[in-house]
């Protein structure tokens, strides 16, 4: 816990401090919205390795971390970027080549696992997945689990309802809590102390944030101290959960940030194409990520026209009429 009233630091320092090789991490957002992409790219630039990534449907962010070789193990519900890549391509290749270990859950399983972590309980129950291979097939063996104190000893438990059919339920699946070493989320607003405001759908960011031992918040706008308190109903994460606040305009680019900008179809389509072969993907990495010293330079390289094209319409929160083919 960081009790400072000014937690504002630079992104490189935040990543260097909290994302060590082998760390267990989770990232906020969903498919092509509000992924903490600037932080993802900085992790890639700093060549972090051996990460254990917990994801529900973290789409673009997860795929880029996997593609760049930062991820060793993955617990995930869904690796897709919507219509831009129904199955994330670098993820697909990494799994098929056996380059990463994967364990599958459903989106609700992962949501409940973060929620359990946030609540401080070892598990939560659900009826989801009864009878399926999500329950029956494990990605991580019991042996592997025994050797790693940071993993629960089982993927899950199926138990009979101890309250004998109460709530019309015969059985439940218990899914174990996740407490990542660090969670990184990108939001519209945070103040220097760390109070955080997400506009629009919060996805599972709030429970991911509260479940983590450390939390990095990157934000479009650094709110002046106290200003977010004028409307406390809109704030989701208390400052005492936050370790680092990073002011990062366009920090979700090329994914969307509701009310600020849309996703960039040009980037995402080009990414999908370049992700197809090892050489074109390598070229993408060299040009866009390793070839830029930070996110500001990446945004500059994208150019004003494309950035202007994705600016959010104030009424709808996205770029109305944007050419998304």
């Amino acid at each position, binding site marked *: 816990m960081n009790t400072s009233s000014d937690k504002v630091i630079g992104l490189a320092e935040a990543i260097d401090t909290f994302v060590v090789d082998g760390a267990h991490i989770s990232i906020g957002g*969903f*498919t*092509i919205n509000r992924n903490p992409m600037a932080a993802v790219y900085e992790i890639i630039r700093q060549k972090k390795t051996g990460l254990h990534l917990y994801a*529900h*449907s973290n789409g673009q962010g997860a795929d880029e971390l996997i593609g760049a070789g930062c991820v060793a193990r993955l617990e*995930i519900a*869904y*690796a*897709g970027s*919507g*219509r*831009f*890549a*129904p*199955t994330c*391509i670098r993820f*697909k290749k990494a799994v*098929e080549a056996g380059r990463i270990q994967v364990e599958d*859950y*459903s*989106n*609700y*399983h992962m*949501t*409940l696992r973060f*929620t359990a972590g946030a609540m401080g309980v070892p598990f939560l129950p659900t*009826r*989801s*997945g*009864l*009878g*399926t*291979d*999500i329950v*029956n*097939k494990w*990605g991580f063996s019991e042996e592997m689990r025994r050797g790693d104190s940071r993993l629960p000893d089982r993927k899950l438990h199926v138990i009979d309802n101890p309250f004998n059919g109460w709530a*019309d*339920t*015969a*059985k*439940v699946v218990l899914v174990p809590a996740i407490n990542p070493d660090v969670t990184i989320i990108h939001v519209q607003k945070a103040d220097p102390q760390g109070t955080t405001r997400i506009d*629009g*759908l*919060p*996805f*599972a960011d709030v*429970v991911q944030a509260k479940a983590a031992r450390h939390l990095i918040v990157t934000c479009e706008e650094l709110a002046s101290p106290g200003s977010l308190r004028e409307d406390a109903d809109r704030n989701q994460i208390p400052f005492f959960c936050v370790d680092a606040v990073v002011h990062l305009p366009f920090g979700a680019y090329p994914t*969307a940030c*509701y009310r600020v900008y849309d*996703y960039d*179809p040009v980037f995402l*389509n080009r990414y*999908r194409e370049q992700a197809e072969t090892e050489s074109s993907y390598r070229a993408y990495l060299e040009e866009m990520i390793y070839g830029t010293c930070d996110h500001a330079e990446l945004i500059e390289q994208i150019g004003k026209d494309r950035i202007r094209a994705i600016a*959010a319409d104030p009424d*709808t929160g*996205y770029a109305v*009429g944007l050419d*998304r*083919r």
Partner: protein
Amino acid sequence: MTDENQYTLKEMMAIAAAREIRDGDIVFCGTGISMLAAMAAKHISAPNSIIFFETGAIDSQLTEVPMAVGDSRVMNGAAVNGSLADAFATMQNRITGGQVVGILGAAQIDCFGNLNSTVIGDYDHPRVRFSGSGGAADVGSFVSRTIIFMQQQRRKFVPVLDYFTCPGWIDGPDGRKQAGLTGGGPEMVVTDMALMGFDDITRRMYLKGCYPGIEPEQVLDNMGFGIDISRAEPVPGPSETELVILRERCDPQGLILTNRRRPPAG
């Protein structure tokens, strides 16, 4: 003027699914064609149906088709912007979940409507990897009815799934109860050739009907298991109204209906 004799199979699929949505249904949508079906239903026959995404947006008033369920467009005109936890609880809760119809898709389906969207081959060393469940296993476990989009291909309609991602009727009449699930299950499969239902008693897939110009035998030729075709009735093609609404009000940019893109490898 739109010519109702000129329509794509994708359009037929979206409309066939839209026709199954009842007024007042809460419609769980995934990405792509399922959104179009839900949008079309709201404009045609089920104005009070509620479009609902696992990302937490409730009763979205879609004016542009979202490219993903996380697209900011799903928040347009929503009644409530909730969280993932809220969305899945709405389905697991039987009071509200009983009103939800889920629209799903998959890489493989078996004769009881169970789905695979995870791997082809062995789970530990897959030949082909797909996206994984997402919310599909949750929807299939919780809600009262599901509608499933599939391509009519032998490798997709399989006797045994390579991986069992999402529960349908499991292994027949008592399958869901034995597994600990309750409520309904798959109601219809919508393919690019036909519609399949599930028998009320056996819970096995049967042919409900073929699209104009398609014969039951063609459907069977494109499946890895046999089904009852004796109950098949012709499925009417899209009406002009249905087509106009689908094309002009749901996907004017042709983002879903016109696949200008090379499909992803695999």
